[in-house]
């Protein structure tokens, strides 16, 4: 018996099956170097078996899905928001021309605006109240300050009056010393301590 033909195998792991049914590797026998003549069951050409074959064929023929049908998310791809089109949605613009929908939109918009204006007015009123309160407070403070100032001024004037009474009595003809002595006389009454 002549030796069987040698074969070059690129990928020995894939020797028995490349995963592709009906490929050369699949059809070839086990890679032990010995090729035997297979004696399979003879093809039955009986008409009674045709039904069974048809059933087997039917079983094998499964439905194949295309990529689109599977709806698998694509990897390593970015789809911008604008590009992605929603499924089952009509293309183009939706116009508003009937009175009812226009009225609905108008009512919504007007309610929004009313609320906005109302809140603005309320805010403005509150601010005005705060401003008014601040103004009154500052006026009050100013008044108090002024009152204190006036009081101090008055008290100073009174003191002056008391202290300067002789000055008012003082007439042109009199000597200036008289006032001074008068002032000194008051001061002289004070007790003094001195260290020699």
């Amino acid at each position, binding site marked *: 018996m002549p030796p069987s033909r040698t074969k070059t195998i690129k990928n020995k792991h894939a020797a028995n099956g490349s995963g592709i049914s009906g490929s050369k590797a699949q059809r070839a026998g086990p890679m032990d170097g010995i090729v035997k003549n297979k004696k399979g069951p003879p093809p039955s050409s009986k008409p009674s078996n045709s039904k069974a074959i048809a059933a087997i064929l039917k079983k094998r023929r499964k439905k194949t899905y295309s990529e689109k049908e599977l709806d698998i998310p694509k990897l390593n791809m970015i789809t911008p928001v604008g590009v992605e089109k929603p499924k089952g949605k009509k293309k183009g613009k939706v116009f508003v021309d009937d009175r009812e*929908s226009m009225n609905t*939109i108008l009512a919504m918009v007007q309610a929004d605006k009313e609320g906005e204006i109302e809140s603005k007015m309320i805010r403005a009123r509150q601010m005005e109240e705060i401003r008014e309160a601040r103004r009154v407070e500052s006026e009050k403070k100013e008044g108090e300050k002024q009152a204190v100032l006036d009081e101090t001024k008055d008290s100073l004037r009174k003191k002056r009056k008391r202290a300067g009474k002789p000055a008012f009595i003082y007439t042109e003809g009199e000597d200036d010393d008289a006032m001074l002595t008068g002032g000194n006389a008051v001061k002289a009454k004070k007790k003094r301590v001195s260290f020699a």
Partner: protein
Amino acid sequence: MRPLTEEETQTVFAKLASICGNSLKNLIAPIDNSPSADRYVFRVQKDRVYYVLLSMANLATTVARDNLLSLGTCLGKMTKTGKFKLHITALPILAEHSRYKIWIKPSGEMPFLYGGNIVKAHVGRWTEDTPEHTGIVVFSMDDRPLGFGVTARSTAEARRLAPTGMVVFRQADAGEYLRDEDSLFSSG
């Protein structure tokens, strides 16, 4: 020429509502009570928004888009960013339905019509309780609408303002009919 989409309708109404009061709904009300009464609708031709009678809009469909320049009253234009800008041509409609009004003295008319803002010294009278930053229509003392703008101060604040202080920022004035004659109607 086409009707407005939902978004466009919303932006247009929002802009109109900033100047007009509750009477805005009369804009789209039918003219009379008959069942087949005519009514006003909004139409977009190129980027301009027109306020037009429905019967006229239907007639205008016979004119090719490229050949149709204008119809009805031009309210303003839609910008490319989706905003809506009111034009001076919308003044008759705004003046009729305005919520806040300001009347300016004859001495202030010319400065305003030349594109200036309104200062306190030029104010004849204005609507009480006007909030700030809200749409307002400007009238002359003999009740002729001159333009519209946005209030810079509320009425309460404006009382304390100096005579040279601004009370209204101008948005559009009747002087634009002359100044912007070239660009006002051509939407090229």
